[in-house]
């Protein structure tokens, strides 16, 4: 596992030996230690069931870890009272795996509804929604219903909704899961833009071609453990490269690699489509 290399204080996100037991037999995570700094862009990779979503849900407190500790901005989340979860979630943007759009509400209403639920006024909604839709490049479809949108557009609306509280942290679960390669690139580019403005972005995905293409830090999970953790730091810290990623982690021969998910990173020839 990687050692934290920043000299400045505690990392933004810190997982220490986190275990999540969904039941006596189902383990979501089996001891994950992971640090993420403010402003980073991290891909959580791994095949289905490896625990990517569980890592994100530990941060958003949709799941309570059974042992270890999860810290956000130096704040221990283990004993966070349920009543404080709402406040915690307003400090992060969550893009769920299904987009979670309300089918009977228009695009702008989807954002407006979420804002009103967070206690914003109508005026604030009128003022902020166009800004946010502009940022996710959906302003021209503001009056459309979700069913009238392509997958990529729906995903952008979902990202827009995650921005309503102007969060410093964005958690996206399989944002390219249902998209064709071109739309996938667009969506990740959008997340990257947000990252350039200072938002810390954590993306769970099994879309390896996309991961390679963008070359951000990769944390590879398997069966609830971190297998590989690359760093792509501006300060020149040697990062584990794709070679290690591919040599250390050879997938068991099952249906999974037919998708080409776990092929060698630099090759990337096998497309997900």
């Amino acid at each position, binding site marked *: 596992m990687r050692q934290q290399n920043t000299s400045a204080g505690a990392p933004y996100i810190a997982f220490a030996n986190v275990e999540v037991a969904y039941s006596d037999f189902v383990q979501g995570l089996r001891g994950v230690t992971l640090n993420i700094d403010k402003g980073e862009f991290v891909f959580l990779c791994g095949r289905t069931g490896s625990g990517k979503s569980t890592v994100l849900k530990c941060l958003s407190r949709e799941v309570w870890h059974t042992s270890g500790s999860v810290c956000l901005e130096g704040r221990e989340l283990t004993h966070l009272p349920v009543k404080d979860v709402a406040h915690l979630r307003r400090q992060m943007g969550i893009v769920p795996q299904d987009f979670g759009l309300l089918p009977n509400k228009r695009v702008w209403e989807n954002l407006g509804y979420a804002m009103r*639920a967070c206690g914003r006024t109508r005026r604030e909604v009128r003022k902020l929604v166009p800004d946010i839709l502009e940022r996710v490049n959906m302003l021209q479809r503001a009056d459309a219903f979700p069913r009238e949108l392509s997958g990529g557009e729906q995903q952008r609306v979902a990202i827009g909704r995650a921005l309503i509280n102007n969060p410093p942290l964005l958690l996206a679960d399989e944002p390219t899961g249902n998209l064709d390669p071109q739309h996938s690139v667009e969506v990740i580019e959008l997340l990257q833009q947000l990252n350039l403005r200072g938002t810390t972005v954590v993306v769970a995905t099994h879309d390896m071609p996309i991961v390679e293409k963008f070359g951000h830090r990769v944390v590879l999970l398997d069966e609830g453990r971190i297998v590989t953790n690359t760093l792509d730091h501006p300060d020149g810290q040697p990062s584990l490269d794709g070679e290690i990623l591919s040599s250390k982690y050879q997938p068991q021969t099952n249906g999974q690699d037919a998708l080409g998910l776990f092929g060698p990173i630099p090759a990337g020839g096998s497309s997900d489509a």
Partner: protein
Amino acid sequence: MLDRIEFLIGESFSALRRNTWMTFAAVTTVCMAIFILGGLGLAFFSFRNVVVGLGQRAEMKVLLLDTLPDRDASLLQGQILAIPGVKSATFVPRSEGLKQLLKENPDIDVEGLQIDNPLPNAYVVRVTELKDFDIVADQVGRIKGVEPRGVKYPADEKNFLMDTVKVLQWLGMALGAIMLATSGILIYNSIRMSVVARRREIRIMQLVGATRFMVWAPMLLEGIVQGAIGGALATLILWGAHNVVQEAVIKGLSALGRPGVFPFSLAFTVLVGAGALYGFVCSLIAVREPLQVKRSLAT
């Protein structure tokens, strides 16, 4: 703040509209429960009037010994009035009694019978409160000069009335309790249905960090509105029923005293308030469950 309230109200009313049938069922049963229980309460207060009226009306006839001279007889009035609970004591000389008897039963032919006036001197005694009736009767019976067992009153009639009221009260309370339980279950169900129907919205709200108040208040409000509407309807029906009863029955028994004027604004406030509170409690129970499920992973 106003904006927030508007949002919550909008949310809960859209739920009420979506759940039309369940809402209808819940509202009508709440209404019936409150109607029965509220009606009992009202009947209780009204009957107090009636019973007091009955006390004024209910009189005992105190027959005096034949051997008592008329002059002494008239002196007993002071003694009777001294008994606590006695409202009035009117002396009815035997001649007066005969006149009354003849007036009430014109077909008796006293002259034809060729006898003297058979009636004793008597007092008509009235009590202030019906509950004192038996005690007063007992004490009057002990006064010297009163014929043994000479205190006459329609005891059975009085007891029958009291018993009927009691039975009606119990029946009403049992029926009201059943209705109340049923309406509680119906409110609970309709709120549960709302939770299911709104699960997408609830999830999104929770995802973007809406407070628990914002997430659950619409459902609580829904229950409160159902209860309050039930209470309001019950008040109206009760009002109508009161007027009908007043017209039909009480008028016939007007001698017993009149039931009070229907206290509309008081009844409205109390019954709507009770309905709202009940709706709130039921919806709170319905909403508590999902909150607990959320916590179950936290160990």
